[in-house]
């Protein structure tokens, strides 16, 4: 048992260390690395929701989109000034004014600037704050949807979220004046003025700081989720996944824990979306299409839905593989456009994994390590009490296999 613990700690240290030095191994592929971490956050939080909690939501990308668009829209419309503009919609907050630039008159602040006293400041909300707002908005939507749908059978959640994701995308597409529509919404970089750390200066466009921000978020989210899973919360949501009615009959407040789980994972997705928005700097409703959701699900399923780590590793590997496969294949005069075909491959892989390896491809390896010795232990213990009826010997093959 002590060996187990050591092994676990070691795995974590090595894994984290690897991710920390990764930028120095593949300096040219930083963009893919950041996106891979983004997907890793989404896939592992979806694994918490679906694999641990048994709640199948297709709106995970929609929540990421909510986080991204909240961050982006705050950056576009919200300013703080030290003097009133008199032209825009504004609210006084002590010395400062919260200014909302109206979509109808986007230049109100520009016009007002001229009339403002010298030295008056106009500031944007810092990136971490608008990401936080995005998390709150994501959480609110999660709470509302959860309260509406999660008291019903679990198919309803899947049905509802797929419709919700589609509506959200439609709305963002339609409200061009506010969101920029399909053309996209410009978002400021994470560090608009660059960043100087350890004597090294990074430009706003440098990817390295963003990578570490995303990495910190990823590790924090993973730690949070593992803590949740180890607590009573994890126990309850797993019992709900296994059998809601039985869990309720044993005193578990099923609806409350389902809503809590849904809200938490929605907030995690929104956080990932917020950081993503500041990293890619132009967000479009396309980040919420069903295809993105399918990719995240494929990542979680192939990695192993019942393992947060498995899903995260699956996401990172698949994102790199997807990028690798982007280039066209040419055989003689016959050329295959891989940008679409690679997704066909992953669709097929998703279905085949589900069909033949329900636990995914990576999780079984992890489980083989972490549950090593359980079966032997049981057998060893069983030999001692002779009172155990032999006719009722447990089916061991299943366990060893899993």
């Amino acid at each position, binding site marked *: 048992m002590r060996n187990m613990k050591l092994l676990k700690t070691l795995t974590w240290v090595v894994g984290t260390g690897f991710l920390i030095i990764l930028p120095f191994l593949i300096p040219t592929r930083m963009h893919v690395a950041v996106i891979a971490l983004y997907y890793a956050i989404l896939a592992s939080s979806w694994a918490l929701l679906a694999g641990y909690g048994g709640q199948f939501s297709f709106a995970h990308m929609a929540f990421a989109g909510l986080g991204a668009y909240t961050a982006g829209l705050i950056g576009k419309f919200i300013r703080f000034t030290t003097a009133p503009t008199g032209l825009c919609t504004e609210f006084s907050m002590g010395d400062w004014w919260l200014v909302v630039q109206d979509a109808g008159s986007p230049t109100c602040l520009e016009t007002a600037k001229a009339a403002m006293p010298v030295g008056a400041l106009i500031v944007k909300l810092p990136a971490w704050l608008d990401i936080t707002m995005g998390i709150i908005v994501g959480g609110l939507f999660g709470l509302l949807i959860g309260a509406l749908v999660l008291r019903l059978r679990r198919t309803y959640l899947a049905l509802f979220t797929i419709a919700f994701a589609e509506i959200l995308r439609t709305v963002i597409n339609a409200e061009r004046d506010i969101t920029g529509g399909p053309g996209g919404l410009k978002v400021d970089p994470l560090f608009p003025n660059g960043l100087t750390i350890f004597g090294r200066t990074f430009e706003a466009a440098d990817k390295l700081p963003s990578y570490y921000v995303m990495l910190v978020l990823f590790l924090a989210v993973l730690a949070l989720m593992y803590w949740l899973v180890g607590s009573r919360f994890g126990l309850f949501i797993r019992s709900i996944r296994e059998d809601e009615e039985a869990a309720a009959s044993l005193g578990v407040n099923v609806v409350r824990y389902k809503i809590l789980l849904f809200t938490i994972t929605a907030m995690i997705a929104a956080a990932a979306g917020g950081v993503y928005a500041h990293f890619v700097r132009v967000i479009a409703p396309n980040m919420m299409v069903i295809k993105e959701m399918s990719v995240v699900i494929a990542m979680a399923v192939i990695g192993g839905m019942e393992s947060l780590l498995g899903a995260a590793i699956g996401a990172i590997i698949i994102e790199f593989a997807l990028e690798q496969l982007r280039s066209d294949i040419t055989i003689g005069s016959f050329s295959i456009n891989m940008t679409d075909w690679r997704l066909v491959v992953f669709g097929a892989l998703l279905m085949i994994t589900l*069909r033949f390896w329900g636990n995914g491809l990576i999780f079984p390896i992890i489980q083989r390590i972490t549950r090593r010795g359980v079966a032997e232990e049981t057998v060893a213990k069983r030999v001692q009490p002779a009172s155990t009826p032999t006719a009722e010997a447990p089916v061991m093959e299943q366990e060893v296999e899993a």
Partner: protein
Amino acid sequence: MNYPSIFWYAVLWIIVWGAVGALVTPRVYARKDKFTHQTAMIGAFIGGAFGPVGLIILWVLTPQLSAKWILASGLVVLLWLGLAFSRADPDNLCVTSGSFVATQLANGLVIGSIYGLMALGLTLIFSILGIVSFAHGEFYMLGGMVTYYFTQVFFPEINPLWGVLAAALFTFVLGSIFELLFLRPMITGQIERPGEYAILVTFGLAFFLQYTTLSLVGASPKKVPRFFDYPKVEVPPDSGAILKMTPGNVTFFDIISIPSPRITALIIALILLAALLYFLYRTWTGKALRAVSQDRQAAAVTGINPKRMNTLAFSLGGMLAGISGAALVQVFSWVPWVGIPASSRSFVIIVLGGMGSLPGAFIGGLILGVVEALGAGCVPDPNRAAAYLPAYGMIILVLVLLLKPTGLFGREL
């Protein structure tokens, strides 16, 4: 008070008092030791329809409640909404022109019948296999694509009905193959968590089919010209014209005007509906299907092979979606992701109609068709009205889930 806000105040009023009614009424009934069955919903409707006055009367008298109350107060709610809308936007075509409303309604019913047909396929699958196929919209999309390629690319001179037939055949075969390969293992016990598996594997199928289609045919919209040109029929306007036809349009009573491709689609839908009903209620196989949907084990005892019924139901369901697509490919332009809104629509319909209820699916389709048509016609800003088309279904879905999650015809589970 300026006009447009009247409508929103009315909506707010209804929502607030509906919520109060839904939350308080069961408690009042419980405190008085009365039966609390359905009191939340009836409270919501009475609150929405009659506001605080109605609620107080309800709480004081606490009469024995029945479903009639819901119908009556639901109609009152609709009346309020209609009145508020006509006050808010008196120049709207929906308020001033009866013929416009009638045309919208008729078009809604026509399109709704196809929605219903498609949802019928989904509900058929649900009632036999107990799963929701998230790839249903892709069968619809493929139905249209096959029809396009069959009638426009491969055999340009052919009667378009052959295209519909080809679509039906294609989706039927595709459905059987998928069922045999991926869903059959669920009932033979090879899959550990069938419920979760079914959601994901059909979703995976949707993804797979979408991108296979995209890779094969590209993203440019396909358009199929109308299947049939209608003969020109014109009766002099003064003679109380009942019918007026041009190749592309049909007008009834000089009021209701429907494009002819939609009429063709309606006729296809009705023929298919009749065929489906005949199949389900008059043939041995159809009866066997219904038997399996009611009691698997009992059906198996009487010599029905439930496995075969599963395959049949899934293929039939996919085929119904495919034919719906084939019928509508002449109405809308076709892209590989046209199935996504279509499947969300089917989900709304089966929840509205009640999961597993065949009449519910068709009636739900008609209701959704009408609501979408009225929404598209009546919402003042025409650009938004069209863009928000899927949102009207969403409103219905939210209301159904709030008020009656079992749907109109659903059995209590």
